[in-house]
Structures are given as structure tokens and as C-alpha cells.
């Protein structure tokens, strides 16, 4: 019987190896799989390349993973936010690498990677420093820059409901990068708030079909990054 639910966060995170590329869902704290990130801190895999829109805030979640010295490179569109100090300090000290990508190009690179498309052309960033060194091609008198699809060894994402086949739904704008990261990763690890029976999610309403999901753990009451930051919490 197929059952993608696991009772152990530790077990599903344990397969993440040193040097892995890991996509982490979330736009700011909305959709951030904070329990999975904290389990990755406990696990201790190092030299990771992390793909996320931001770089976390405070001393919890993604910011704590970076502060713990586990991340050698960030691929993101907006590496500074309110309460974001960990990444800027390490970046200025040249202790972490940054690949800055326009937000829509980042999303499309992930979508393309998940769809088996190695590269594509886009008008975004043409004529700016972010197109430097990249191939430019002209279609219908307009210039486009070539961008590469992105794939990852793992994706860590947060869902609202999940069934044993891995079908997922999301909550409000917490959906953001999760469905495309699930497609672009070799192994997709999910923390879901509500485990449901197969069939409880109307097939018309499935957002991520189970084929893109490998392991699910239930986290009924996920912590909220902004609440932890406001409390001055740190992890570990």
C-alpha cells in the first residue's frame, strides 16, 4: 500500500547529504516549513545550496540554518527583509555566496526545471547587470536573455492538507513556491497541517498531485516565524 506519511521528521530529513541543493518553500514566513528547517539544523548537513525567495529573519528557521554555518550559497531574489541580519553579515564577510535572480525568473527557472526544460528565454533583466555574461537572442525584434532551469536534490515545503498519496492543498498565499519546488526536486519532503483520507481532497481541488511528493509529516500546529522573532527566540 502506498503511504507517504512518516511519523518521524528526523527520519525523512536524515537523507539530506552534505553539498545538497535544497529548495525551501515560503515567501517570507508565509509557507515557510519551519519545523522541517529546524530538523535540518538538528541533522547538521553542511555546504548546502539553498533556493528560497529570501534569507529568513531573526534567528529561527532559514536564518538559523544560515547562522549555523550549513549554507554555502543562497539562490534568491530578495536577500534582505525586515529583521534579516544573519545573511547580510555573512555576505559582507564573504562567508556565503549569493546568486541574485529576479523573482519571476526564479519562479520560472524552478518551473522549467520541474518540467524537464534545461533553459528558456525571457525579457526580464535584459539591459541590466543581471543579464551580464548571459546569452541574448532576438525574437520578433525584441531581445531575450537565456536562463537555466533549476532542479534540486530536495524540496522542503509546507502544505495545508495531504493524503497518503501525497496530494496537497495549500492555504492562501502560503502556496507561493511550494507547488513548483515539489516538481523540481528529486525528493520532496512535506510538512502538512491536516492529514486527510484519500478522496477527502476533491480531485478538482488538488493543487500538487501526489506524484511530485515523496514523504509527508504531520505538523498540526506549526510555529510562526514572526511570532518566534517577536519573542526573540533562537534555534537551536
Amino acid at each position, binding site marked *: 500500500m502506498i503511504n507517504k506519511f512518516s511519523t518521524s521528521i528526523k527520519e525523512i530529513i536524515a537523507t539530506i547529504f552534505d553539498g545538497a541543493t535544497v529548495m525551501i518553500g515560503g515567501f517570507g*514566513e508565509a509557507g515557510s516549513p519551519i519545523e522541517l528547517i529546524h530538523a535540518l539544523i538538528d541533522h547538521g548537513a553542511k555546504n548546502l545550496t539553498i533556493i528560497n525567495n529570501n534569507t529568513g529573519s531573526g534567528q529561527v528557521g532559514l536564518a538559523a540554518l544560515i547562522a549555523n554555518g550549513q549554507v554555502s550559497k543562497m539562490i534568491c531574489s530578495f536577500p534582505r527583509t525586515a529583521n534579516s541580519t544573519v545573511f547580510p553579515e555573512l*555576505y559582507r564577510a564573504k562567508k556565503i555566496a549569493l546568486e541574485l535572480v529576479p*523573482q519571476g525568473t526564479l*519562479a520560472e527557472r524552478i518551473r522549467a526545471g520541474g518540467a524537464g526544460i534545461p533553459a528558456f528565454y525571457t*525579457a526580464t533583466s535584459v539591459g541590466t547587470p543581471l543579464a551580464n555574461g548571459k546569452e541574448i537572442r532576438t525574437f520578433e525584434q525584441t531581445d531575450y536573455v537565456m536562463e537555466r532551469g533549476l532542479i534540486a536534490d530536495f524540496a522542503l515545503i509546507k502544505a495545508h492538507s495531504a493524503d497518503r498519496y501525497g496530494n496537497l492543498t495549500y492555504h492562501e498565499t502560503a*502556496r507561493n513556491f511550494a507547488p513548483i519546488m515539489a516538481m523540481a526536486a528529486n525528493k520532496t519532503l512535506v510538512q502538512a497541517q491536516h492529514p486527510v483520507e484519500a478522496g477527502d481532497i476533491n480531485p478538482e481541488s488538488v493543487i500538487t498531485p501526489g506524484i511530485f511528493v515523496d514523504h509527508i509529516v504531520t505538523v498540526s500546529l506549526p510555529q510562526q516565524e514572526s511570532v518566534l522573532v517577536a519573542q526573540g527566540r533562537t534555534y537551536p
Partner: protein
Amino acid sequence: MTINDEKIADKDMIDKKATGWDREQMAERAAQDIPDGAYVNLGIGMPEKVARYVPKGREFIYHTENGLLGMGPSPDKDHISLDLINAGKKPVTAIPGAAYFHHADSFAMIRGRHIDICVLGAMQVSETGDLANWSTGAEGAIPAVGGAMDLVAGVKTIFVMTQHTTKEGQAKLLKKCHYPLTGPKVVNRIYTNLCVIEVTENGFELIELAPNVDFDYVAAHTEAELIDSRTQTLPLTTCHSDPLHHTGSQS
């Protein structure tokens, strides 16, 4: 996208010698040029104020690029959801009839030329419509771009809202931008505290002055040449529906 915009807006101070419009009036003026039924993306900061001034009888649909079409106003404190936020990561609401979607779909709306109008802040704009609003290129700064480059490359019409000069009184409307570009030849119209400017193949064409502001004063605070086009009524560039053609007024 750009938290940049907020910071830019915060740095901007109204020129004391010629106050012209305040920020609310700038937003109100820009809103008048958005047609009924438009799909609109508002940058973080001053452009967000445009939503307060929807002209009577018109309906705009707001897109926020983190994944919501049909964004409503801020919630009261008892109805905040940490999962329901805008591109500036602030709590918002969803109107009846709203839709959620993932990031690739959201940026397909932008990059696929489905969004009609975007209102953005600016650090510098050139007379050819080049926009710089994401980085000063300063050494040691943490570069952050967000969705700004996607918006200017893909949205049909780009409005800029900005103070006419920096708080030090330096021109922001230039012959050529000094800062790294967000996009070349992308700005269609500029709303400042002093005037409204249409960016055309001729350069900056001033089409309206704020009350009690004179043309020579504005020209003196604009580095590029300023053409007085107040007598002619330029058609609005909004909502052209040519999906493949760049709608910058230069093309």
C-alpha cells in the same frame, strides 16, 4: 516585489520651495489615469496609496505577485492571517471573487503581458524611459531585486510615482540613469509632486502641472530637457492589448 520602493519613498522629502501635490494627491492623480476593469499591480510604499483613490464608477483588480489576484484592503487586527500577505509581506485580505495561485502562474501573469498597469517607485528615470529602482550599485550593499525587473519587462504600462528630486534636491529625472537599471525603455508616465510627465520618443513631455507650480521651476529641477506639452492632450497609453509588442512609448 520591492521593499526598495518603501525605502525610496521614506527617503524622499517634499521639496519645501514648491510643494505641489502631497503624496495622497499624487496617488489620487495617478488613479485617475487607470481605466475601469484594469488589472493593476501596485509597488510597495507610496504606490500602494493609489488603491485609496479609485475614481467613482471604476473597478480595479489588484494583483500581488506572491500569489493573489483580487487583493483587498488591510484587515483589522482581529482578522489577520499570517498566510495572507502582499508582496511587501504585510497582511491583506482577499475580495469575494479572488484567486490564489503559485509563483510561476503569478509571474506568468506579469511576464505574459496580462497585467495592465504597474505603479512603481523610482530612484532615477531617464528621458528614454529607463528605470533604476533596485540598487544604487554601492560597494558593500546587499543586492535585492524582487519582482521589479519582471514587472517592468512584462506589464503593459508602467507608471512611476516619485518625488521630483531627491531630498538633497538632486534631479531624479535624468538624461541617463547612473544607477544600475531595472529595465531599459520601460516607463510610460511619471507622477511627481510637481507634475505629470509622459515619456515619449521625444523625451519628457510635461502634460500637467500641480497647482501653483510653474513650468520653469520644474524644468530647472529636471536634468533632461522638459517639453511643454500642456496644450495637447496625449491619449492614455493604458491597456494596449498587443501581446508581443513592447508597449514602452518608444517602441
